């Protein structure tokens, strides 16, 4: 098992390199000059040249590329062009907020989506199934920034039940600040996972081994949960991975709406200010997240499906 994990980790290296290369290229072909962005339109050519020299932007492209790779490797993402703080510090400060938002929203999504899917599958084509279908359609259709604003207006501004913005201080306060943003992101997840659970469970409930379970004398709950859902979880694992990745991209908008710290918000303000070093660092973090989640999915497969051989 440990060997398998190590091998998957090594397999991820080319992916990571490719991602880093793409980030590097994207940053170079983006319109706008970072030096002008940092120093303003009225900077003298000497000032610009000095800035470029300081940031290593005057070196040949290949050298910049290797500097960049080395920087990532040593966790040195440079300094923000705006406030001169190390990018790593900015990332380390913001990352926990994004992680907790992602985890919480995935948890809400699973807790709501899977039971809804089971409910729909057990009452196929009856009222509960239709209700879940409508819920899913709404969940798919409503953009997260809009839903976030609605929740914010209703529960924070009008009812005053939840804080209006920020990330919170201390454990309980942070959870408190998390609830509305996490619910916002969880909505589409519940819709997606609900549909996926329903489809997957219905497919599994028609299988021969489910008939065997009935023939043994198992009652409905046991058939559905022990034999049905356990097998339906296999495709759900993929859905969960996709859903977690979607939570990451969704966090960008939600962090803005709720004005809470996070990598998404960091990225957005960096892009607005053409803070190349921060953009680069933020994108690298996001990319690493994606690679990591895919890696985790591979591991979860091995755990949930005994047929996958680990050699």
């Amino acid at each position: 098992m440990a060997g398998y994990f190590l091998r998957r980790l090594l397999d991820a290296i080319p992916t990571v390199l490719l991602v880093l290369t793409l980030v590097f290229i994207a940053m170079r072909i983006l319109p706008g000059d970072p030096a002008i962005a940092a120093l303003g339109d009225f900077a003298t050519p000497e000032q610009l040249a000095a800035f470029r020299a300081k940031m290593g932007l005057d070196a040949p492209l290949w050298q910049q590329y290797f500097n960049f790779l080395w920087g990532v490797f040593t966790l040195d993402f440079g300094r923000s062009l705006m406030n001169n703080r190390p990018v790593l510090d900015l990332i380390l400060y913001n990352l926990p907020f994004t992680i907790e938002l992602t985890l919480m929203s995935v948890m809400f999504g699973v807790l709501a989506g899977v039971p809804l899917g089971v409910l729909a599958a057990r009452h196929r084509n009856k009222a509960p199934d239709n209700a879940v279908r409508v819920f899913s359609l709404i969940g798919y259709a409503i953009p997260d920034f809009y839903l976030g604003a609605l929740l914010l207006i209703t529960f924070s501004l009008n009812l005053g039940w939840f804080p209006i913005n920020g990330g919170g201080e201390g454990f309980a306060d942070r959870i408190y600040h998390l609830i509305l943003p996490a619910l916002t992101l969880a909505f589409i997840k519940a819709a997606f996972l609900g549909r996926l659970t329903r489809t997957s469970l219905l497919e599994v409930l028609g299988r021969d081994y489910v008939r065997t379970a009935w023939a043994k004398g198992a009652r409905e709950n046991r058939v559905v949960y022990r034999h049905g859902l356990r097998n339906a979880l296999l495709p759900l694992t993929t859905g969960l991975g996709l859903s977690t990745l979607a939570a990451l991209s969704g966090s960008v908008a939600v962090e803005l709406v709720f004005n809470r710290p996070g990598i998404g918000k960091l990225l957005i303000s960096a892009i607005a200010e053409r803070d190349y070093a921060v953009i680069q660092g933020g994108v690298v973090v996001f990319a690493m997240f994606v690679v990591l989640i895919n890696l985790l999915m591979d591991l979860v497969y091995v755990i949930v499906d005994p047929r996958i051989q680990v050699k």
Partner: protein
Amino acid sequence: MMKGNVLEIRDLHVEFGPKDRAIQVLNGVSFDIPQGGAVGLVGESGSGKSVTSLATMRLIPSPPGRVTKGTITFNGTDLLALPLGKMPDIRGRDIAMIFQEPMSSLNPVMKIGDQIGEAIMLHENIDRRARRAKVIEMLKLVGIPNPEGRLDSYPHQFSGGMRQRVMIAMALLCRPKLLIADEPTTALDVTIQAQVLELMKDIRARLGTAILLISHDLGVVADLCDSVVVMYAGHVVEIGATEEIFDTPRHPYTRGLLASIPRLHGGEERLFQIPGSVPVPGTIKKGCPFYSRCGMRIDRCRTEMPPMFDFDGSQRAACWVTAAEAHAHVKEPAQ
């Protein structure tokens, strides 16, 4: 209920599809299984064999299927009159079932020991150790080598024949009075097929379990069963002791089935096949269901459904022509 019968099916009607345009799949199926007896249920695909067995377990998927008429009496209780919530107590404990596809009939993510043990856990209050001992004993009985070492294996680590043995072990764990085996050997190699049949014979002798063997393979039925029920298009067309059916088949369909068994010394002529195919359920409204494929048909067959005539011995068959030839009559009114 006749004394000595573990199962009596009477006039069983099953239909599928929406009520206003339902398709009749079983049209009055009746037969008995004696205590400890072995009955073969034969017929081509689509004749209603599996639906009959699923109806007995009350496992017909509903919707779209439903039993519209008839009784299934098991040890004096009409199963069809029981509330559905009582059926799990009977399934697995009194009536067990094994299926055609050993490859897909076991839960792929559950250990073999747990799957077999579940059968007894559902019906008896029994602790883990005793359960484990019973599972091992049963695995030994069905001929799985090193059963202790296989409890933690998953189904994909077993061959097809071994999986069918596992299915049989699971079915027999609670010592059911009736074992329904739906094409248990069809998906297996011929040598494995023989082993599984031997196993079923052996179990019947040792445990006294009655067996309903569903098969389209008359050879398999002849090997294991005392009597045979021949089904065609949702009707029982012939019933009798195995030797009677094989020696003097009375229904043209049974004759066709027997004639289409390949024989080792059968010469080089083309193997007989019954012309045409089983009618689509619901397309036959009147007359004998075999009319369109029958080589002996007379006009009466087209309009009038023959009753089950009583021939010599225990044999009964639904055919106007052969009944007239053999001077057979209907002893009791057709149900």
